[in-house]
C-alpha cells in the first residue's frame, strides 16, 4: 500500500493524515511538496485539509495550479485513486477533477463540529466498498467554505450517476443537520469512475476512540485495503 500526501503552502492537516495512515498501515506515506514535478508511483494520492495559499482568490484556486497538480491529474487519468479532504476537496474542484463548487457556509461562519453522515453507495468505489447503503458514520467537519453547489444540470447529472458519496444526516437529536447549506445535503462526491473522492469531513481526525471515534479509521482502512 503506497500513499502519497501532497503538502501545499498553508496545508495544515498533512501531518494529521500522515499520522493516521501510519497508524493504519504501519508504514509512513510519502510526503510531496507542491512544487515537485513527479509523484512516486502509488495507490492513493491524498490532498489534505488546510488553507492552501491562505484561501487567496478562492479556496484551492491557486493550489490547483501548483506544478504537482499536473501529476495528480495524470494519476487520476490513469485510473489512480485520489482523496481530497476539506481544502483538498476544494482543490479537486478547482482542478476540475470533480464537478461543482464549494462556497461560503450558509451561516457565514467557520463551523467545527461532529456531524452524522449517511453513506450513499450507488456506484462501485474503493472508498465506499466497506459500507452499506444508508450506513451512518460520524466525523468532524471544520470549514468556512463547505457549502456544495452545482447548477441544476450538473447536479442532476451527479445525482443520476449516483456520484454523491456522503450526505449530512439528521441525527436523532436533530443537531447535525446540514451544517453549511450544501445543496441536497452533499458532503462528499465521487468522480464518474468512483476513484476520485472529495469530502468535507475529516476522517483522519477520528482514528482513535479517545479523539472522538473510529469511523475515520474504518473509512481509511477499508479504502486502503481496497486499493492495495
Amino acid at each position, binding site marked *: 500500500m503506497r500513499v502519497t500526501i501532497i503538502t501545499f*503552502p*498553508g496545508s*495544515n*492537516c498533512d*501531518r*494529521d493524515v500522515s*499520522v*493516521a495512515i501510519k497508524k493504519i498501515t504501519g508504514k509512513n506515506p510519502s510526503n510531496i*511538496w507542491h512544487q515537485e514535478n513527479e509523484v512516486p508511483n502509488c495507490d492513493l494520492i491524498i490532498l489534505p*485539509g*488546510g*488553507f492552501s*495559499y*491562505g*484561501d*487567496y482568490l478562492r479556496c484551492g484556486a491557486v493550489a490547483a495550479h501548483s506544478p504537482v497538480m499536473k501529476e495528480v491529474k495524470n494519476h487520476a487519468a490513469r485510473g489512480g485513486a485520489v482523496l481530497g479532504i476539506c481544502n483538498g476537496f476544494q482543490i479537486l474542484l478547482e482542478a476540475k477533477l470533480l464537478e461543482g463548487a464549494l462556497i461560503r457556509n450558509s451561516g457565514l*461562519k*467557520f*463551523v*467545527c*463540529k461532529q456531524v452524522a453522515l449517511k453513506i450513499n453507495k450507488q456506484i462501485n468505489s474503493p472508498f465506499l466498498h466497506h459500507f452499506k447503503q444508508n450506513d451512518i458514520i460520524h466525523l*468532524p467537519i*471544520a470549514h*468556512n467554505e463547505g457549502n456544495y453547489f452545482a447548477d441544476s444540470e450538473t447536479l442532476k447529472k451527479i445525482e443520476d450517476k449516483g456520484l454523491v458519496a456522503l450526505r449530512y444526516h439528521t441525527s436523532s437529536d436533530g443537531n447535525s443537520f446540514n451544517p453549511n447549506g450544501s445543496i441536497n445535503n452533499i458532503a462528499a462526491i465521487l468522480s464518474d469512475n468512483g476513484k476520485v473522492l472529495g469530502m468535507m469531513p*475529516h476522517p*483522519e*481526525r477520528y*482514528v482513535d476512540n*479517545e*479523539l*472522538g471515534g473510529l469511523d475515520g479509521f474504518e473509512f481509511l482502512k477499508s479504502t486502503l485495503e481496497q486499493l492495495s
Partner: protein
Amino acid sequence: MSNLREGLSTFEIAEELGLKKDEYEQICSLMGRIPNIHEISIFSAMWSEHCSYKSSRKWLKTLPTKGEVVIHGPGENAGAIDIGDGKVAIFKIESHNHPSFIEPYQGAATGVGGILRDVFTMGARPVALLNALRFGSIENNKTKYLLEGVVSGIGGYGNCIGIPTIGGETNFDKSYDGNILVNAMAIGITEKDKIFLSAARGVGYPLIYVGAKTGRDGIHGASMSSTEFDDKTEEKRPTVQVGDPFTGKLLMEACLELMTTDSVVAIQDMGAAGLTSSAVEMGSKGKLGVKLDLDLVPLREENMSTAEIMLSESQERMLMIIKPDKMDKANSIFKKWNLDIAKIGEITNSQNLEIYKNNILDAQIPITYLVDQAPEYDRDWTTPEKAPELQIKNAPIKSVSKVIEKLFNSHNLCSRNWIWEQYDTSVMGDTVIPPGQNSGVIRVHGTNKKLCASVDCTPRYVSADPFLGSMQAVCEAYRNIISVGGTPLAITNNLNFGNPEKKEIMGQIVHSIKGISEASLKLNMPVISGNVSLYNETNGKAILPTPVIGAVGAIDENKHSTSLSNAVDGNSIFVIGQDNSHTDGWVGQSIYAQEILDIEKDYAPPPVNIDAELANGNFILKAIEQKLTNCVHDISDGGLAIAISEILLSSRTKGIGAVINKNYIHNSESFWFGEDQGRYLVCTSKNKEIEELAESNKIKITNIATINLSDRLTFSNEDYICISELDVKHKNWFKNFMS
C-alpha cells in the same frame, strides 16, 4: 557623535509620543544631550507601560516564579516547564485588548498571531490555543459587533494556521463597554535540549530579518496600548496591525525547519514596538550592541521614515542571529517558504543600539538606557476596603428548577457553543477534550501523555476583594486541571486593570498580585510567564479588575483521566469538600445574588481556604487514580444546583436525569446556589470505596443525588426540570442573542 543626524527633539514632541515631563528630562540627563527625534521615538516605545511594565514591575518581581518543573520563568518570550520524558511545554497568555476594541477582527487575529510567535520563537511547535474574553453589557449595541468580530478574528487566525483552540471563557459586564478584553494563550511543545532564546551572542554575527515585509501598520501600537480611551478612540484605527495567518503559517514552518539545522544563535519575534523592541531585547539580554542598517529592511511601502520602520508593528516578522556559515542554509529554507530574508545588521560589542539610514547615523543609544534605566514606579496605592458579608434570610426555596432554568437561559451560564464551533478544535489530531468542559485536554503528540489547560477569572470577586478574588482565580484554574485528572504544574497570568496612576486601581493591582502569589505558592503552580494590560479605562471609568489565570497540567502516560460527559445511569453524585452539616451557602457575589436577588452592591466574595483546596484536590486525584470515578466537575459559577445540571447537560447518555437525595430536597437557596469554594462533584458507582477514601483522608463528603434515565433533574415531586428541554435552551441562548 558629530555625524548623528540632526533634528533635535522637544518636550512637546516627546509628550505627543506619550512621555511625561520628568521622563523626558531623565532621558536628556541620561543621554547627556538632547536626543534627536528618532531617538526619542525609540525611548517613547521602550519606556511605554506596554514594553517597560513601569507601573507593575516592582510588584511583578514578587510573584513566585521558581519551582521544580520551571525551566524558564518570566523574562523570555514565554515560560517553559519540564513535563517529563525530555519534553517541555512552553506557554504564555497575552492581551490584545486595546486593538480589539478599535478593530475587533484584526485586533483579535493579531493577538493570536502574536502569542503563537512567542511560543514558536522558543523552538516549540504550538499545539493548543485558549482565550479569555470579556465584553460589555448584552444590552449595549456594540457588544454583538465586537463579539462577532473578535470570535471570527480568533478563528480566522487559529483555524488557518492550524492550531486547535481547546478552551476559554467569555463573560459580559457593563464595565467592559468601552474596553473589551481579549486575552489569548498558546501552548507549545519541544524537547528539553531544543529551546531557543533571544539573548544576542557572537560579536560580528549577522542579524537576520525574516518573514513579512514592513509596512506602516501598527505604528505606535505599544504607546496606544498604554493610554486610556476617550471618545476619539476611532481615530486610532490606523494603529491596529493587520494579520496574515497564511504568512504566519509559512513563517512558523520556516523557523521550525531552520531550527533543526543548528543555524540559529538567537531569535526574537517582532511584536509590540516592532524592530525596536526585538533588537533592544536581544542586545540587552546578551549585553551586546546591535547595529542596524534600515536600508536593508524589506519594506512594503515607499519612503518610510526611520521611526516608521523602527516602530512598525507589521505582523509575521522575526529577528534572528544566525551562524555566519549557515546563511546559505537559511536562505534556501526561507526561499522555499517564499518569505523575505535579509541581513539588516550585526551584533557589536558596543552595547549601543546604532541605527543607520542612507549611511547616516540616525540614532545611537546605550541599550541599558532603554531597558535597565527605564522608569520603575512605586505608585501610590490604597488598601481596598473590606466588603461586608451579605446576609440573606435563608428560607427553604420554593423552586430550585425555575432558578436553574433562568440562569442557563441567560448570558451568564448558557453554553458558549456559538463561539467555540467557530474555532477548529480538532486539527492536529490530538484533542481529547475540546472546549466546554473543565479543562481542554490534548495528547502530547506521539506519546500517551496528555496536557490539560484552563483559563479562569471571576472579576466580580476580584472587584469586591482583589486579594481573595485573585487567589480564587488561581484556585479555580487548579480545580479545573484537577477535574480532568491532571497534575497542576504552572500558571501564566494576564493582569487586566484600569489606570495605575489612580491609587485605588494600583491598590487592586498590588493586592491582586499578592493574592496570586499566595495561591500559586501554596498550590505549587509557579507563574512562568504573563502579561500586564493597564489603562483599560474609557472616559475615566475602569473595567472590573480582571487577572486572568491560565493553568497547565499534565496527565501521565496510562493514567486514568476523566470527562464531564461520562456520567451514567446508576451513578451516585457526591459533593467533595462539603458534608451533611452544610446547610447555608455563601451568596455574596454569587450569580444568584446578581441575577435573582438583583444585588449590585459590593458584598464580600466567598472565602478561600487554600489548605482545604489542596487537600480536596489531592483527594480527587487519588479517587481518579484508583478509578473510583470517571466524571468529576468543579463547583463554580452558580453553585451546587448548576454544577449538578452541567453534569447532566454534558453527558453522552441519552435521557439522563438525576434525583436529589431526600435529605436535601428542602434546602435553602443559598445551599443550592451559594458559591462556596474548594468543592467538586464526583460521579461514581463505588459509593463505599469513595466514602472510605474520603474518611481516611479526612475529606468532607456527602451523597447528593442519584443518576437515572428520567430525563429530569428532580428535587421533589413538584420541583423538577426536564434536561432535554433545558439542553435546548442552554445551547440556543447564544445563537438567538447573536442572530
